[in-house]
């Protein structure tokens, strides 16, 4: 067991097993016949027919429904919990709290401290205080209401910009600073600014964004003696298994976690929840299975967020467009514990060639729920600042924004020891993207006439993602039945990204079978192989090579058996459409089902391991996104007219599902730019005032353009892994908000540097400009 490199948030705090190198050598694919095609999903039927069983749908005999009572104040210590009335209510079978003897789960509070599930010290609204199991969810919520909780309420601070002021309420005993600022430096920042012809400085802010997947966080927990089975809505069953076993002091083998379907996570479902532990404890106490699905309000409040970032960026550029210096200072918060600034500076350090860079990231505590990884942690924040600044620089030196970016393309990974990339298609993303978007023509049209109160504008932004190359560990097992049909066994979750479909295509590519005919077992710690959680845009680059290795093992065994039967050398044989053919002239020699040794054995098993990544190179996806808007300068309303997403994610494994990911990332980024914002009542209560989808607005069908284009840039990459694929999920949302902001600035001539760009802010900016004129 070993620790993975820093930054791989999807395995944070966990030890992951090493996997051996694959046994069968794998040459890079050149042309593929199945991989790359726009195939509908292998589990499409289940997902549209209602037959897919999500954890929310699991129903077991004698099952009870759980519910959690949460702390109602922003900072307080629970001094008593009276559950006597609740216990006597109809249908109620069990109530647990910090003051009942059943809370024997311990969970890591920080690297060094563990607390029980119900920690009386509640440093934010939404901390679990008690939990109930009852015959119906209605009775469970009735019972919550009958629980009497006494709090010793404390002063609070809910705004990180005020947390370090003298006299601010203390979130943690040691004060509100989350440690020394993290400083990164290369080159000589002062010299860099001295060498610049233009130096600009600007303040940017991104608001707190919340994941809110459609399926609520939750699980069903069932005990069989000392064995626990959990059906959990999760991105990683093995993460949940480790979390539950650790908290309950159980052997891993006694905790089985199943997560076949799950309704979205975006980083908020990488770990065992406190609801998971509550369900397990309630199921133990009541000796009944317990389903515990949290409420929508709790999902906005208590299961993670992308924390706010306050960024000051100073940048220097020469008249010819050469970047000379970038200095980013940021203040963020992880909530009442942890840090929230992780990777906020990565885009500044990595994406553009710049010899002199300094970043300083500070964190403080506030009385708000802890952050969780959220689709490219830190990156959309950093891109919001850097990509707007590049447009401002381009404007200052009178250069096209794309030309400025193209002039400063990094040739090596500056943030990672100047190692070269296995492939870097950023230039093509910029240039080919601009051409497909009709960038120059559209800008010329707009320059020719933008009269009236509806102003058109176009904007773009670039991006990269610190992970997205994948890597070991991963194990896949393929079973070939005697009739040639196939079962694929892997631990990875399909969180909606099409993992199952792509893996079936990889098997089909190597073994010449119909991807739709492959049976897939996945995401079950009891029956499938180890996989790290599906997150970090790394599932396809991690799992595909392992699945391919397993398929090649099967192929080798199969051709050996066929060669023995045909009395030829195995190297003269190939597999095509379930048939053994001559490698030389493709003449049909033997159908798989006619291989006698296979019939006798019943099946063949191939085990595939994920090999290591190249040590001397860096694997990185790149993106450039282009956006056209129309701004009503009388009302401040913005209509996003069209979007083009150009992505270097290596080989596109399935063009249909990959495009869907790209559009999904753009859609989420539009929400980040335009509407999404957690609001804490900083003056009176410290509580969240918009914990519902009416007041916390995510994009609807009315907010996104129908005119979206996905432009895959597929540089040949034979080094990143054995299938040539890099990640898409997170790169797809990293540049989006900045591209929107740049388009609005192009349309109106005013720049809103704080998210979300709502009509009020935009009108105010327009009014200020008019006053200035």
């Amino acid at each position: 067991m070993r620790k993975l490199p820093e930054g791989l948030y999807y395995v944070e705090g966990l030890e992951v097993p090493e996997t051996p190198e694959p046994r069968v050598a794998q040459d890079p694919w050149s042309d593929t016949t199945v991989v790359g095609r726009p195939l509908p999903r292998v589990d499409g039927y289940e997902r549209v027919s209602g037959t897919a069983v999500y954890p929310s749908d699991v129903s077991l005999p004698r099952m009870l429904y759980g519910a959690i009572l949460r702390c109602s104040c922003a900072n307080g210590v629970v001094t008593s919990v009276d559950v006597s009335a609740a216990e006597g209510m109809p249908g109620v079978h069990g109530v647990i709290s910090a003051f009942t003897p059943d809370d024997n789960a311990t969970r890591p509070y920080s690297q060094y401290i563990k607390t029980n599930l119900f920690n009386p010290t509640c440093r934010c609204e939404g901390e679990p205080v008690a939990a109930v199991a009852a015959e119906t969810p209605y009775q469970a919520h009735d019972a919550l209401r009958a629980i009497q909780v006494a709090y010793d309420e404390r002063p609070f601070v809910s705004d990180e910009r005020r947390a370090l002021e003298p006299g601010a309420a203390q979130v943690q005993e040691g004060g509100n600073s989350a440690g020394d600022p993290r400083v990164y430096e290369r080159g000589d920042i002062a010299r860099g600014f001295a060498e610049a012809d233009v130096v600009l400085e600007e303040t940017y802010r991104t608001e707190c964004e919340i994941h809110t997947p459609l399926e609520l966080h939750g699980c069903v927990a069932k005990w069989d003696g000392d064995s626990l089975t959990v059906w959990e809505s999760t991105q990683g069953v093995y993460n949940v298994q480790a979390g539950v076993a650790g908290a309950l002091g159980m052997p891993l083998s006694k905790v089985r976690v199943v997560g076949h379907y799950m309704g979205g996570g975006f980083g908020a479902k990488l770990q065992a929840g406190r609801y998971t532990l509550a369900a397990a404890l309630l199921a133990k106490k009541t000796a009944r299975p317990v389903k515990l699905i949290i409420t929508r309000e709790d999902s906005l409040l208590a299961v993670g967020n992308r924390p706010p970032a306050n960024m000051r960026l100073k940048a220097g550029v020469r008249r010819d467009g050469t970047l000379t210096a970038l200095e980013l200072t940021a203040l963020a918060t992880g909530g009442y514990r942890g840090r929230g600034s992780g990777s906020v500076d990565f885009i500044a350090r990595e994406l553009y060639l710049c010899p002199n860079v300094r970043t300083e990231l500070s964190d403080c505590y506030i009385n708000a729920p802890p952050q969780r990884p959220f689709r490219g942690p830190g990156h959309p924040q950093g891109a919001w600042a850097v990509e707007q600044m590049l447009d401002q620089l381009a404007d200052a030196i009178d250069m096209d924004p794309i030309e400025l970016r193209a002039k400063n393309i990094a040739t090596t990974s500056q943030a990672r020891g100047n190692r070269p990339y296995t492939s870097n298609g950023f230039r093509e993303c910029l240039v080919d993207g601009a051409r497909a978007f009709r960038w120059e023509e559209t800008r010329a049209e707009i320059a020719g006439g933008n009269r009236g109160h509806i102003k058109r504008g176009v904007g773009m932004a670039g991006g990269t993602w610190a992970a997205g190359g994948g890597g070991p560990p991963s194990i896949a097992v393929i079973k070939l039945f005697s009739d040639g049909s196939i079962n694929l066994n892997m631990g990875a979750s399909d969180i909606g990204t099409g993992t199952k479909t792509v893996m079936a295509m990889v098997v089909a590519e190597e073994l010449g079978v119909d991807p739709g005919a492959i049976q897939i077992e996945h995401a079950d710690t009891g029956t499938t192989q180890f996989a790290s959680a599906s997150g970090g845009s790394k599932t396809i680059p991690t799992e595909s090579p392992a699945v391919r290795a397993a398929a090649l093992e099967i192929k080798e065994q199969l051709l050996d058996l066929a060669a023995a039967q045909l009395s030829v050398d195995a190297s003269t044989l190939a597999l095509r459409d379930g048939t053994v053919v001559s490698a030389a002239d493709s003449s049909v020699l033997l159908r798989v089902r006619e291989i006698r040794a296979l019939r006798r054995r019943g099946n063949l098993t191939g085990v595939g391991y994920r090999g290591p990544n190249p040590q001397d190179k860096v694997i990185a996806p790149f993106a450039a996104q282009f956006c056209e808007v129309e701004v009503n300068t009388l009302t401040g309303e913005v209509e996003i007219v069209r979007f083009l997403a150009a992505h270097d994610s290596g080989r596109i494994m399935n063009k249909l599902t990959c495009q869907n990911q790209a559009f999904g990332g753009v859609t989420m980024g539009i929400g980040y730019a335009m509407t999404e914002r957690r609001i804490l009542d900083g003056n009176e209560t410290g509580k969240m005032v918009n914990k519902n989808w009416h007041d916390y607005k995510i994009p609807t069908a009315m907010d996104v353009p129908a005119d979206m284009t996905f432009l895959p840039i597929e540089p040949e990459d034979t080094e990143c892994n054995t299938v040539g694929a890099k990640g898409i999920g997170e790169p797809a949302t990293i540049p989006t908000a900045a591209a929107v902001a740049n388009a609005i600035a192009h349309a109106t001539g005013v720049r809103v540097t704080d998210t979300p760009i709502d009509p009020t802010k935009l009108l105010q900016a327009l009014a200020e400009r008019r006053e200035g004129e």
Partner: protein
Amino acid sequence: MTDDRKKQDTQDRERRRGVTRRGFLGSLGTGAATVAVASQVSAEQLPEGEQLPAGDVTRVTLDVNGRRRDVLVEPRWSLAFVLRDKLGLTGTKPGCERGECGACTVLIGGVPRYACMTLAMEAQGAEITTVEGLMDGEAIGPVQQAFVEKDAFQCGYCTSGQVMAAEGLLRANGDPNLEEIRTQMSGNLCRCGTYAHIFQAVGRASELKRGEGGAS
């Protein structure tokens, strides 16, 4: 039993249960900030006639996917809860329990409705269609087919609701234009952000339903 005894009995029962209709109404969509209202939830504060004890069940007859279903329900139970937890029709998904996301959309009398905002009792006497009701045996219907073809979902959790909204739209308007599609589908959230593909799928479903380009 005298009237006074009856009244006393009812009040005692209320107190034991600790819940009233007002308590139930107050509970809709809360869940987090419950402590603050706990003290307000007591039977004594309400006039007698207002009291309708939770926990008492009543028989309703629902017409679901062309079949008559007799169910014992508490008056406060939502149609979504009854469909999923009493009739086993888990294609209908709960997402917010307050009419914001549309994951629980079903057709009532052919019109898309949020099943979380509809009491099971209210749905009596109307034709209810869930996503399971769009199937022809084990074969998926044209809207579902179009969603698969156009990859109009990712995690799939909102999909039943999207499919039902699209079905309702196409029953009312067989050949909608893009703006009609966007407007009519705007009551259904998709956090994976598949709207662009959903627009295509609804257009494709319209073709399929009109017998163009394949099965009806």
